[in-house]
C-alpha cells in the first residue's frame, strides 16, 4: 500500500496450484484493509474465497499492525470480517503485496510458502508440519489453521471459524517472508510524523506490558494476542489499526495528514464515506 497509484494482489488458486499477481489501479479509493478486502471478494460471485489484506499504515506507522480477513461463515452463510495482530500483514507488505486472495480447494492437505515473488505449493503427508522450516529467518510470518482458529504464532484472529474455513480448503498454513524495501520520497517529513505518532503510545488506553508485540508496536499489551471478529464502522478496519487503542485513528484529519505524508491523498469526504460505501457493497455479497 506504499504505492499511491497501485494495489498489488496475490491470487492463489489452490485447486490448480496457480499463483497470479495482479496490479490494480482502481482500488486505491478503497484505502486498504476491509475496503480492499470486500471489493476483492466481490470480484468472485458465487465463490467463497478467503481474503487477507493489510493497510496503508501497516509498515509505515505504529499501532496499525493487524491483518484483515474476510470469508463466508459456514455456520450463517454471512460474510465475516476478522482481524489478527502479529506480523502477517507486515510480511505480506514486505513481500510486495497489499492483499492475498485464496480461491477454491486443494485436492490434498498442503501449505503455501510465499517468499517475495516466489510462491510454492507444498503437499503434506499426514501429521507433517513441514512449513515450520520455510521462509527467511527473522523476516517471516506463519499462519496456521487449526480447530482453535488461525494463529500467527502467539496472535489469534479472533474467530475459531476461520481455521475451519481454511482447513476445508485443505490449507493448513501460509508462510510469508518479505525482504523488499520501500524508498521514501520525503524521509524527513515521514520520520517526523512517525516519531510524533510513536510518542503517543503513553496516551493510549492500552498500557505497555511484556506480552509479545505486534509488528511496529511498542506496547506488547495484554490484548495483542486476542484478535477481533467484526469491526466497528469507523476508519480502523480500513487502516487495519489495532482495535484496542481507542479512538486514536478514528479522527479523519489525523488519518488524512498521515496518508498525505505517504503521498496518499484521499479527500476528507471520501474517507468519511468509506464505511458506508463498503457496508453497501458488502450487503450485495450476502
Amino acid at each position, binding site marked *: 500500500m*506504499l504505492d499511491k497509484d497501485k494495489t498489488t494482489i496475490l491470487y492463489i488458486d489452490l485447486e490448480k496450484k496457480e499463483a497470479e499477481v495482479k496490479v490494480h489501479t482502481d482500488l486505491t479509493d478503497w484505502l486498504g484493509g476491509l475496503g480492499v478486502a470486500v471489493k476483492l471478494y466481490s470480484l468472485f460471485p458465487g465463490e467463497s474465497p478467503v481474503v487477507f489484506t493489510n493497510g496503508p499504515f501497516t*509498515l*509505515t506507522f*505504529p499501532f496499525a499492525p493487524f491483518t484483515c480477513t474476510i470469508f463466508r461463515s459456514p455456520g450463517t452463510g454471512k460474510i465475516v470480517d476478522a482481524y489478527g495482530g502479529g*506480523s502477517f500483514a*507486515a510480511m505480506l507488505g*514486505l513481500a510486495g503485496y497489499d492483499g492475498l486472495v485464496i480461491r477454491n480447494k486443494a485436492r490434498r492437505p498442503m501449505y503455501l510458502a510465499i517468499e517475495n515473488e516466489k510462491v510454492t505449493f507444498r503437499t503434506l503427508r499426514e501429521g507433517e508440519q513441514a512449513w515450520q522450516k520455510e521462509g527467511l529467518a*527473522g*523476516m517471516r510470518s506463519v499462519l496456521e489453521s487449526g480447530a482453535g482458529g488461525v494463529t500467527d504464532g502467539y496472535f489469534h484472529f479472533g474467530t475459531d471459524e476461520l481455521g475451519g474455513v481454511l482447513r476445508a480448503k485443505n490449507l493448513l498454513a501460509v508462510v510469508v517472508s*518479505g*525482504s*523488499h*524495501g*520501500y*524508498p*521514501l520520497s520525503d*524521509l524527513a517529513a515521514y*520520520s517526523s510524523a512517525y516519531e510524533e505518532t*510513536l510518542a503517543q503510545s503513553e496516551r493510549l488506553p492500552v498500557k*505497555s506490558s*511484556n*506480552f*509479545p*508485540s*505486534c*509488528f*511496529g*508496536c*511498542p506496547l*506488547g499489551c495484554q490484548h495483542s494476542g486476542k484478535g477481533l471478529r467484526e469491526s466497528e464502522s469507523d476508519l480502523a478496519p480500513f487502516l487495519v489499526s489495532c482495535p484496542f487503542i481507542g479512538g486514536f485513528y478514528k479522527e479523519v484529519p489525523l488519518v488524512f495528514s498521515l496518508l498525505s505524508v505517504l503521498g496518499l491523498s484521499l479527500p476528507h469526504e471520501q474517507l468519511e464515506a468509506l464505511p458506508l460505501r463498503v457496508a453497501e457493497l458488502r450487503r450485495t455479497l450476502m
Partner: protein
Amino acid sequence: MTARLEVTNEQFCRGCHLCCLAWARIKSGTISLAEVPVRVQRDGQKFFITLEGVVGEEGNLLVQRCPRHCFSLTHAG
C-alpha cells in the same frame, strides 16, 4: 564499528521490529526490515548487547536504545 552496550534491565526482546525499522531508515532511507546485527553476551551477572556497525563517524550511537524499552542500554565501552 561496534558498540558494546550493557543491558540494564532483565526483559527480553518482544519482537516489535521497531529497531529493525529504525535501523533501515538510518541505513538506507527506506521502509524495510533491516537485520539489526545484535549479539547478546553474558559476562558474569551482566548482559551485554553488541551492535555492529551502528556507531557513526563521530562515535555517536545511531541506534541508542531499544524503541520499545525492552532493553535499556548504556554504553559500556
